[in-house]
């Protein structure tokens, strides 16, 4: 298994709540090669964030319960590490940036201190060395007048600037894997474009892998080389980025792509009607015997409600959790 940086094997995360056991993540497996960008896509509540939090051991327990056959990072099972060893991995080998830069930065500490912190904690640099390095990283994150801003507090910066600080903070220890959870969702498009190109640049420079979690298929198309689509806690499709957009197999992936309004040069008159995926996502507490997408699927047939489909191989590197692989004649043509 050369080149595998991260392997997640049969990961489940359950939350115990008064309404019952919520299976936020239900048997998820995927892996990441060195230097690759993997897009983890899905709508709210599909389990993409919880998956990423469990990699770093950040799922609050109780109420959360992580069950897995292994989360291997460079061959080491992260689930077996003691808290101190896991702390050494976090921030140093695997970093994470979050959606809302205001809530993930500490409002009462100057940004220079926050960016220098991983260096003080992991690399044993002296304070002045760490601050020097922090300033250099803030400059690389294209923060104007970075040195003068070391003593600024997060509230003095705009949203885009805060996300740049987060990126600098995640990068200072030159991690091998960056987990970015909706890194640009809270930002305006022009700022999003700046942040994405900054991330691409730094990723290439450091040769790190990127696990990009997002609901935005546009961002995935522009950034990822491989895509994992999640629905109701499960992986429903996995494929190279071209395959996902050119020949998606799972009806959910197809529906998602068709329901996106696209910037197209419209020729006269109304644009086409958007495709809807009827219904809503099932509650995570619901026990579903068959396919979890059955109730919303336009191609549904008997088997789908009876038996839970596996993640079947479709073609080169493409897998989909759908019975249509074995019963292609059941696929309706007109939807």
């Amino acid at each position, binding site marked *: 298994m050369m080149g595998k940086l991260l392997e997640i094997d049969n990961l489940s995360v359950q939350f115990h709540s008064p309404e019952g056991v919520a299976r936020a993540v239900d048997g998820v497996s995927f892996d990441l090669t060195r230097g690759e960008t993997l897009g983890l896509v899905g709508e709210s509540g599909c389990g993409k964030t919880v998956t990423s939090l469990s990699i770093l051991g950040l799922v609050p327990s109780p109420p959360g319960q992580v069950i897995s056959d292994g989360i291997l990072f460079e061959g080491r099972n992260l689930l077996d590490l003691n808290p101190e060893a896991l702390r050494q991995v976090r921030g140093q080998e695997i970093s994470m940036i979050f959606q809302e830069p205001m809530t993930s930065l500490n409002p009462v500490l100057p940004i220079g201190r926050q960016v220098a912190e991983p260096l003080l904690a992991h690399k044993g640099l002296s304070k002045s060395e760490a601050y020097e390095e922090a300033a250099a990283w803030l400059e690389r994150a294209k923060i104007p007048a970075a040195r003068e801003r070391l003593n600024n507090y997060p509230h003095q910066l705009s949203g*885009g600037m805060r996300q740049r600080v987060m990126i600098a903070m995640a990068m200072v220890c030159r991690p091998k894997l960056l987990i970015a959870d909706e890194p640009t969702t809270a930002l305006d498009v022009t700022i999003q474009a700046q942040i*994405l190109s900054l991330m691409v640049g730094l990723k290439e420079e450091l040769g790190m892998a990127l696990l990009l979690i997002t609901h935005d298929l546009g961002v995935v198309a522009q950034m990822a080389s491989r895509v994992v689509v999640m629905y109701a806690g499960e992986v429903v499709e996995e494929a190279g980025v071209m395959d996902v957009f050119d020949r998606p197999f799972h009806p959910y992936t197809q529906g998602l792509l068709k329901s996106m309004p696209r*910037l*197209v*040069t*419209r020729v006269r008159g109304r*644009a086409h*009607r958007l495709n809807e995926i009827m219904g809503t996502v099932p509650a995570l507490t619901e026990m579903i015997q068959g396919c979890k997408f059955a109730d919303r699927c336009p191609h549904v047939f008997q088997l789908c409600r009876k038996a839970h489909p596996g993640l079947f191989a479709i073609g080169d590197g493409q897998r989909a959790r759908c019975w249509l692989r074995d019963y292609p004649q059941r696929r309706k043509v007109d939807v």
Partner: protein
Amino acid sequence: MSEIPLLAVHDLVKHFPLGGGLLSRPRAWVRAVDGVSFDVKRGESFGLVGESGCGKTTLGRLILRLIDPSGGRIEFDGRDFSRLNRAEMRSLRQRMQIIFQDPYSSLDPRMKVYATVTEPLRANQRISKAKRREAAAELLERVGLQAVDLDKYPHEFSGGQRQRIGIARALCVRPDLIVADEPVSALDVSIQAQVINLMEHLREDFELSYIFISHDLSVVEHICDRIAVMYLGAIFELAPTESFSVAPRHPYTRALLMAVPQPDPHRRVKPLSMEGDVPNPIDPPSGCTFHPRCQHAFDRCRAQRPPLVQVTSNHYVACCLNEGRGVEGGIE
């Protein structure tokens, strides 16, 4: 008859004071909306796009008269708002409704759906309770919910369904104009498509006009007939959707369009370089407010603020380039 636009906005201005109090003067003014003019025709869907802080939401609220303007004029159906007395204003208000962004905070959690949907009716018209209930049931069915939902509370619904309740509430008084402020931004893509399609349906059925406020160009392009792009309180470009997407003229519009990540991995576009943040609206740059971020900026841009001028029959742009005609040619 149809000569008079449904809504006409002339040189509208809203400045918010910063600081100051009962005795002291404000320290500064935020120019949230700074001289905006446009009109909305009957049955038209008019899009207002821009990034956060560009004044699009303030403009929406000014139109609904939820806040008072500092200057300028709004005419609805040919009648000037500022000349109406309270009673007239009240009856005019029924013809304009709003749909909010956040379906979680815009519904009262302690009010049943029935009460929420008919609240505008109770405020405005003397109709019996039974009639109101009947009207609410019919509306819920029109927006894709059921009559049995009347006695439920908001927490029993998903985000998309809540947004449908918000839409039913807006339709309740049969308005002519609906201001929809980011109505689908909080929803997932598949649910977003449901709500967009519903809004398009309803526009035909109820002969509505929309002012559709959004930061999402793809959504606005999909639903709107004409689009206005705002930046720091002013309209930079106004055009029918077709010419807007084929040949945008303002450098800001072009950068905005190029910045939207396209769901096509075969066309990986390097976004047009536009450095920097939106400037502070308390102290906007001189001349054209976009000049510090504009790659075409030259002397005149720093010196004078270009007016919004007509370039072709229905395409307006506010830019100093090419004698006020903006950039020529299509984008990639």
